[in-house]
C-alpha cells in the first residue's frame, strides 16, 4: 500500500510535496498548540484547551480535504497516458488497443483507492467531518481531469456531461439520496468511456506536430480550403496527396489557417463555466453577497467581466487586421462607420448589452445572487463565441488593412 501511494503521489511533479504539506497541517497545528501552551504556561488550562479545540477541527478539515483533493488529482494524472507524452508515444508503438491493462498502472479506480477513501473517511469521522466531503474532494479533480481526457480524445458528449456533472456534487450536497447518486453515476460514465478514450490514444500516432500526419495534413487541408483550391502533387490516392504536400518545405511556407472554435465547444463551454462558478458561489450565504436591491454591484460585475471578454475577442480579431481608416481619418472624412470593418464590434456590443439586460431581468425576478453574478457574463461569453463573423471568415473577407500581427512578430507565420 505504501508503494501504491508513492506511485500515485510521486508520478507527477509537485503533487507529492503539496500532499505532504497538507498531511503536515494537522500535526503542525498540534505542535504549534503545544509550543504556545508550553511557553505561556497554559498547556493544561481548560480555557486554552477549549479555545484550541475549534482550531484543531478546522486544521483537520483543511488537512483532510487537501489530501483528498491531491489524491484525486494524483489518481487522475498518475497513470493516464493522456498526461504523459513519452508514455503515450511508447504505447503507440505497441499493440495496445485500449482493452489491455495499462503498463504503468490502472487509470480506473481499484481496491487501493477504496482503502484510501475508507482511511480518510474514518479519520474524518474522528473530527466530525462528513464522509461525503471526502468523496467530493477526491472525485471532483479525478472526474474533471477524466472529462479533459475524454474531450481531447474526441468524446465531447461524455466530457461535457462530466464537466457539468462535477459541480452537481456540491450543488446538490444537501439532498440525501441525490448527492450519493451523482458521484456514482459520473464515475460509471467515466469508467465506461475509459476504454474508448484509451483506444483513441492507441490508434492515434502521438508525434510532434511536424511529423504527425493528422495534425499537419489537417493544417494543409484547412489551408487549401481557405485558398479554395486543392493542390495535387503526385499519385492518385487522396491521402497520399495530402501527406505529400504536408511536410517540408510546404509546412514552413504555407500560411496557417485561423481555427474557428468548434460549435459544440462554443455553446457548451460558456454553459459549463457558468454552472461551475454559480454552483461554487452558491455556498456563499445570500446575506454575504452585495444584494441586488441595495447595490449596483451585479451590474458592475456583469459589465466589467463582459467588457474584458469583449475586448479579448476584439484583440484577437484585430491582431494583424487594422481598421482601414483610423479614428482621425473617420472624423476628417466623415466616414463614422466602415461597415466591412466595424461588423466585428457588433458581437461585443451585443454581448455587453445582453449581459446588462440579463442582470436587470434576473434582478427583477429575484434570482439568487450566485446566478445573478454568473449567468449574465455567461450569456456574454456565449454570444462572443457564437456570433459572427467567424475569425476565419473575418480574416478572409473583412474590410481591414493587413499589418504584422502578433503571430508574425513572433515568427510563427501569418494566420489567414
Amino acid at each position, binding site marked *: 500500500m505504501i*508503494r501504491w501511494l*508513492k*506511485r500515485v503521489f*510521486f*508520478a507527477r511533479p509537485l503533487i507529492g510535496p503539496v500532499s505532504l504539506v497538507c498531511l503536515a497541517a494537522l500535526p503542525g497545528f498540534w505542535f504549534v498548540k503545544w509550543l504556545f501552551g508550553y511557553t505561556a504556561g497554559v498547556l493544561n488550562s481548560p480555557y486554552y484547551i477549549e479555545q484550541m479545540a475549534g482550531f484543531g477541527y478546522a486544521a483537520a478539515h483543511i488537512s483532510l480535504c487537501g489530501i483528498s483533493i491531491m489524491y484525486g488529482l494524483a489518481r487522475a494524472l498518475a497513470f493516464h497516458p493522456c498526461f504523459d507524452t*513519452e*508514455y503515450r*508515444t*511508447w504505447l*503507440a*508503438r*505497441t*499493440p*495496445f*488497443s485500449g482493452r*489491455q*491493462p*495499462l*503498463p*504503468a*498502472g490502472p487509470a480506473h479506480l481499484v481496491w487501493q483507492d477504496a482503502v484510501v477513501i475508507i482511511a480518510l473517511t474514518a479519520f474524518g469521522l474522528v473530527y466530525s467531518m462528513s464522509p461525503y466531503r471526502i468523496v467530493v474532494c477526491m472525485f471532483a479533480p479525478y472526474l474533471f481531469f477524466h472529462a479533459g481526457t475524454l474531450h481531447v480524445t474526441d468524446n465531447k458528449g461524455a466530457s461535457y456531461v462530466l464537466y457539468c456533472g462535477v459541480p452537481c456534487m456540491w450543488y446538490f450536497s444537501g439532498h440525501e439520496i441525490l448527492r450519493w447518486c451523482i458521484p456514482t453515476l459520473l464515475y460509471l460514465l467515466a469508467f465506461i468511456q475509459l476504454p474508448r478514450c484509451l483506444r483513441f490514444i*492507441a*490508434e492515434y*500516432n502521438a*508525434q510532434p506536430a*511536424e*511529423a*504527425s*500526419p493528422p495534425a499537419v495534413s489537417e493544417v494543409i487541408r484547412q489551408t487549401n480550403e481557405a485558398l479554395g483550391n486543392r493542390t495535387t502533387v503526385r499519385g492518385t490516392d487522396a491521402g497520399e496527396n495530402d*501527406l*505529400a504536400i504536408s*511536410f*517540408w*518545405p510546404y509546412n*514552413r511556407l504555407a500560411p496557417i489557417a485561423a481555427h474557428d472554435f468548434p460549435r459544440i465547444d462554443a455553446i457548451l463551454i460558456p454553459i459549463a463555466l457558468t454552472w461551475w462558478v454559480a454552483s461554487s458561489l452558491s455556498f456563499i450565504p445570500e446575506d454575504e453577497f452585495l444584494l441586488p436591491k441595495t447595490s449596483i454591484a451585479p451590474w458592475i460585475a456583469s459589465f466589467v467581466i463582459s467588457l474584458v471578454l469583449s475586448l479579448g475577442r476584439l484583440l484577437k480579431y484585430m491582431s494583424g487586421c487594422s481598421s482601414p481608416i483610423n479614428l482621425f481619418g473617420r472624423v476628417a472624412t466623415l466616414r463614422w462607420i466602415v461597415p466591412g470593418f466595424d461588423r466585428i464590434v457588433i458581437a461585443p456590443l451585443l454581448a455587453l448589452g445582453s449581459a446588462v439586460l440579463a442582470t436587470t431581468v434576473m434582478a427583477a425576478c429575484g434570482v439568487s445572487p450566485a446566478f445573478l453574478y454568473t449567468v449574465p457574463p455567461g450569456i456574454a461569453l456565449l454570444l462572443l463565441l457564437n456570433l459572427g463573423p467567424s475569425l476565419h471568415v473575418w480574416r478572409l473577407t473583412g474590410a481591414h488593412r493587413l499589418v504584422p500581427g502578433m503571430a508574425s512578430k513572433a515568427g510563427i507565420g501569418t494566420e489567414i
Partner: protein
Amino acid sequence: MIKVVDLVQHYGVRPVLRDINIEIAEGEVVALMGPNGMGKSTLLAAMAGVLWPQKGYIEIDGKRRRQTVDDELAIRKKVVYLPDHPWLPKFNTAREFLLSVGRLYSIEPTRLMEHVQRLLTLFDLDANGDQAIDGLSNGQKKKVAIASALVTEAPIMLLDEPFSGGLDPAGMFALKAVMKQLRDRSDVTVVMATPVPEIVEGLADRVIILRNGELVAFDTPDGLRKLANVTGPLEEVLEHLIDPKGAENISQYLESRKK
C-alpha cells in the same frame, strides 16, 4: 519482410534520409551503421512507424505502415522497437513492467512469467527485479529496456544502439549471446543500429551503411570487403566506407601533436 521504399526524411531544412530503398528478408539480422547524425535512428524510427516520412513508405510483411488502423495494429503486434532512450515507468518494478509489456503482446501468462524470470536472471537483475525502476542505475535501466523488447517475442525487432547506454560487459555478453541465437532462427528479423564494428562482425547477416543520408552499401560483411577492396577486419572495411578521410584526419592530428 521489411521493405523501405523511396524513403525521404527532413528535419526542418536538414535532409536526413534521401531515397532509401532496402529490403530485409525474414530471419535476417541486419546492422545499421554510419557516422553520428547521418540518419540511423531516423531510419529505424521510420521502420517502427514512429516517424511519418515526407516521401516513400515502409512495408512490413506486405502491409504498409499507417495505411489503415487494422493493418497498423497488426504490424504493431509483430514489431517491437527499442529506441535509444526508451520510456520506462519510474515507480513500477522491472518485473511488473516486463509482465505488463508481455501482456500487451498477448504472451501466454505462465510462459510470460517464466520468460521474465529468465530475462531477469540473464541480465543479472534478480536482486533488483522487484524494486522500482527509478532506483536502478542507467546500465540496469538499459537492461530492463532490452529485456522489455525481448519479452515481447516479436518476430521483428528494431533496436537502436542496444549495446550502448551504460551496459556492463556481462550485459553486453548476454545480449550478444541472445542476438547470436536470434540470428540462427529463421523466424526472427532484427535490425539494429550500432556504432561498434566488433559487434557487427559476428552477428549481422548484412550491414546497411548510411552516409550523409544516403545508402552507401547494403551487403554481407564479405560483400562489403569486396566493395571496399579491403581484406582485413570489418572495422577497416567500415573505416573505408563510412569515413574515408578518417585515417587521414587521425594521422594529421597525431602529427600535429608530435610537433
